[in-house]
């Protein structure tokens, strides 16, 4: 299975969002920012001490709290 949580996704690997759990509130918020199921996503870096992740999505850089990134399920692109 190459479906993993965003929090576990390796740096620089491109993946696609499968689903966002944790209630409508979080998923709607992220969807408004362009993080909808099927969107390509890449982890750029993680802050140390279990900090937030910086991601690239739709050509923009976003920082997501660690808790939030544990709610996003992604699938690693095959090629």
């Amino acid at each position, binding site marked *: 299975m190459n479906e993993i949580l965003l929090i576990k996704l390796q740096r620089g690997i491109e993946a696609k969002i499968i689903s966002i759990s944790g209630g*409508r509130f979080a998923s709607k918020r992220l969807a408004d920012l*362009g993080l909808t*199921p*099927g969107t390509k996503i890449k982890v750029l870096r993680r802050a140390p001490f279990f900090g*937030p992740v910086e991601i690239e999505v739709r050509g923009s850089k976003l*920082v997501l*709290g660690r808790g939030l990134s544990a709610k996003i399920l992604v699938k690693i692109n095959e090629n």
Partner: protein
Amino acid sequence: MKTKKQLYFALAGQANVGKSVIFNYLTSLHQHIGNWPGKTVEKAEGKLYYKGYTINILDLPGIYSLSTYSIEELVAREYIAVKKPDLVVNVVDITNLERNLIFSLQLLELERPIIIVFNMIDLAKKKGIEIDFKKLEQILSVPSMPTVASHGIGLSEVLDGAIELLQKRVLPQPLKFGEEVEKQIKELITVLNDVDLPYPKRWLSIKLLEKDKEVEKLIKDKKPAILKRVKELSLNLEKIHGHDSSVVIADERCHLVSRIIKKVVKITKPKKISFEEKLHIITTHRILGYFLMTAILGLMFLTIFTFGNWLSFLLEKVFSDWQIWWKDVFGNSILATLSWSAVESTLALIQIALPYILPFYLFLYLLEDLGYLARVSFLMDSFMHKIGVHGKACIPLLLGLGCNVPACLSCRIMETERERFITGFLTTFVPCSAVTVIIMGLVGKFVGISFAFGLYIFALLIIFILGRLALKFLPGETTELIMAMPDYKVPNIKTIILQTFFRLKEFIYIAAPLVIISGVIIKAIELAGWLNPIARLLSPITVNWLGLPVITGILLIFGLLRKEMILVMLAALLGTTDFAQVLTPPQMITLAIVAMFYIPCVATISALWKQFGWKKTVAVTLFKTVFAIGLGGIVFRLLTVFW
């Protein structure tokens, strides 16, 4: 168009798009910063005279969507939909076009006259982004203007375009979603036909399918039966798409935008890593990042305090000359003395504002405009989570080291009311520059510099513990950090200076009334000869519990005005600046701790009041007083055991 000389424009856009640069460029000194009535959201209005028109510009808060996630988003959409400004100017950061356009589509749904300003085309070119504006304008059917706001390029074209659009009186056509979604929307529009609300019907329908709580409430009051129909229609969508209907709608917008992007954007990525990118890598590095952060902030504080002490000393001299002059002219009557204390309080404010708050804001806005503060939030997020708030909260806390007033006011950057309050509450425990004067002048000088630094660490510990406690007592989950990471860019000096100026003005306006009133009252108490009786009245606390001299009561009263007055009055009342002769080291440390944590100074009380209302202000003030006295007594007892 009938000759209407007054125009109302609203600037709308996400954070870091250069909205405030445009606002400041257009309105310059003709602006006013206040709060939205009853809200802790900032309202910046400005005026501009252009080609015979008076254009009133409202700078809406920087937001990421028009959902009701934060108070800002609610305020912004209410303003556009209900107050109906003549024109919405949507500012878009072209280097983040796709995310920004998702927001633009939401603005179009509000069906107000709109133009879109595509800002930062210079940076886009650098990043190899090429955009076909003609095509973009065609697809959106909205005037689209490229600008470089930081250099004022394209802004007069924006104004001309705006006036032209208003003369033509065309409303934007919202872009059409997919077939199934449109079907549900159409059905809802007919159902909503006889509902009288000041919003476009199509917008209401979309928001209902998005399960927007505020719109649901509106409909419930008018015709609750509609909500049942909404549920059915949402369910239809969810069956077809397999996601919550709110996500389906957002997804539709994303699809529309990515199709637009495919048609109008061409990117040729530059081969070399840019300087900005390198800077980003270094400043967010897991080791170097923290090292640099400590260095940058440390240097900033050092500069500010060195400059501040110098200027404060200079002003002190000038103002004391003024006092002599006042006495010469008006004499020594009670009225003359009281009116001088009013003047003195005002001067005291200036003595904080110019030496400390001014450079603080300058540095802070510089770092913000540069993009560095976002990196600080990124690095500090995990620490801030330990006290129940996310990374952005470190900015108010940092500001608190300069002065608690701007710190309190800056809590507006937090998303929810709960986080604003926790952050505001905690900032009042941060030792400000006035407290630093006490810590350094008393403990640092007479007990030892290591003890002075120990007190800072102690304050940090207290803030941490109180944060944990606040987390327990204030229900709710910590909001997760969601923040756009802006690219580093050359700061815009004009914006920084204007923002600093208006903040300084705000500080004086908020703090002055209460500071002047309390200054006069305290002087009156002094003239009436009540200071000593009050000090004796307080002696069970000051002498018996805290182990300090009787005059401490007087000191704490004066400290309400400005905390460093504690030290000034101590010297005045004892007739010596060699405090070691009159106070033991444990007494000094106890006094410093009480000074650090007891009642926030009058100016901070004003800021708390403005931000959180009087109930919370009274609660915080009482809590701090009891807490500081309780803690002071315990520390004194512990210290005397070991000393």
